[in-house]
């Protein structure tokens, strides 16, 4: 979808149409821009910018607060549209999906025709201001590239006729999976273009990046990708589950930090239980006011899915820790996961908690997060719902 959150807001509120709009937290808050309208993008205002950066480019930029419920609802709508064209739909993010049309289109012309019908149906159901850009290619890597070629409201085909010329023109970071960190590492090897990457020996890439990433980079430079489109029906098991939160103001206050960690542990525990998972490795991390990171990681003997247990384990670490700088963001994530873990805890109070947890989860699912909560969180307000990390839930 093109500039998704911003165009949805412009669809809902016609007075925003044609104007540079960004979706972000309240102006003056510490959030970043999560979406820029086409008009804002043309001015150079991008996702990830801070408020003052956007204002310095265009002083009359309009800030709109995100409305997650609206975007999720519309995402479910367009997924239903995609499902009418193929049952193999992989939801890549809240505004992107891959469709495997190989069972439905025998020719490129048929694929283009289906793509045009999808675009029309999206506008008919979501609104005339909401557009999508579609990329058609033989694999996910190239189709994702193609979808970015002709935005907004684009339709682009990459096939054997133009594949090499497309690969010659793009930057390394145009590939999904190559960000600034990998780009820097490639630059350090003297690889500054896709062409140069295609000339770099596979063995050397494996040596630098490991067997999996090395082979992936090698394939990318040739437009090769054998990852299948994974239907939304076959949800891939996550490698980790977690939550993070940016504090209202930078703080050294350990009590405030621990309270936030408790809330994050509670939410993470609920998410683990919802997915019938338990984890052994817990990472508590924080971002300082200068955007550097700190954190602590521990792997335990047993598996954990209760928020309180996650918190007790993290508290014992944090209490001993002395923050050298003020903390801006705190996060929790649990990995080393196992499904349907059923071993009963040794202690009676933990067994009692385990019996009660499903009922607490049901109440919080029905009436909202923190309807029932640990006493420590009595005065804590619900942390803002994530706009990212979209999950389909019926």
């Amino acid at each position: 979808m093109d500039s998704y959150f911003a165009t949805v807001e412009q669809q809902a509120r016609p007075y925003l149409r044609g104007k540079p709009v960004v979706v972000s937290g309240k102006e003056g808050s510490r959030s970043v821009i999560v979406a820029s309208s086409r008009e804002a993008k043309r001015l150079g205002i991008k996702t990830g910018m801070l408020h003052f950066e956007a204002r310095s480019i265009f002083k009359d930029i309009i800030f709109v607060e995100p409305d997650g419920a609206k975007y999720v609802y519309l995402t479910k709508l367009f997924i239903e549209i995609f499902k009418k064209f193929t049952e193999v739909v992989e939801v890549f993010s809240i505004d992107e999906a891959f469709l495997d049309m190989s069972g439905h289109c025998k020719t490129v012309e048929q694929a283009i025709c289906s793509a045009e019908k999808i675009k029309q149906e999206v506008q008919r159901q979501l609104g005339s201001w909401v557009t999508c850009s579609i990329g058609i290619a033989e694999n996910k890597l190239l189709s994702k590239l193609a979808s970015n070629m002709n935005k907004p409201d684009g339709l682009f085909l990459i096939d054997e006729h133009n594949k090499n010329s497309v690969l010659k023109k793009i930057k390394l970071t145009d590939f999904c999976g190559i960000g600034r960190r990998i780009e820097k590492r490639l630059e350090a090897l003297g690889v500054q273009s896709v062409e140069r990457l295609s000339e770099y020996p596979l063995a050397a890439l494996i040596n630098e990046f490991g067997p999996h990433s090395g082979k992936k980079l090698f394939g990318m430079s040739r437009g090769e990708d054998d990852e299948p489109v994974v239907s939304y029906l076959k949800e891939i098991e996550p490698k980790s589950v977690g939550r993070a939160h940016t504090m209202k103001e930078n703080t050294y206050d350990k009590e405030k930090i621990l309270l936030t960690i408790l809330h994050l542990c509670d939410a993470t525990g609920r998410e683990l239980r919802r997915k019938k998972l338990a984890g052994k490795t817990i990472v508590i991390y924080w971002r300082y006011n200068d955007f550097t990171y700190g954190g602590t990681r521990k792997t335990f003997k047993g598996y954990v899915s209760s928020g309180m247990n996650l918190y007790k384990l993290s508290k014992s670490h944090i209490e001993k820790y002395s923050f050298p700088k003020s903390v801006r963001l705190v996060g929790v994530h649990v990995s080393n996961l196992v499904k349907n873990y059923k071993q009963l805890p040794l202690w009676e109070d933990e067994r009692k908690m385990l019996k009660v947890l499903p009922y607490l989860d049901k109440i919080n699912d029905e009436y909202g997060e923190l309807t029932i909560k640990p006493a420590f969180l009595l005065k804590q307000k619900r942390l803002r719902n994530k706009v990212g990390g979209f999950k389909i839930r019926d």
Partner: protein
Amino acid sequence: MLEQVNEKIDVLVAFRKKGEVLPLSFDWDNRKYCVNKVNLVHSEKKGSNKWYHFSVSSNESYFKLGFDTGNHAWVLEEAYLA
């Protein structure tokens, strides 16, 4: 300027045979507003109740109307008067 209102209002609604619910007009602040266009509809759960939100235009003004299916009440959530 966009104004958060959150006031209960009277709304005239059409229930169409395709299952669509269409707000036609509403009264607010001693004035009747005709709905010229429904720009977007979405729903969400608030607590145990399902809400439907209608983003509508009345001439050049914009309004967000919320319908609480639990209480059968309409609320004017926000307004931008042209």
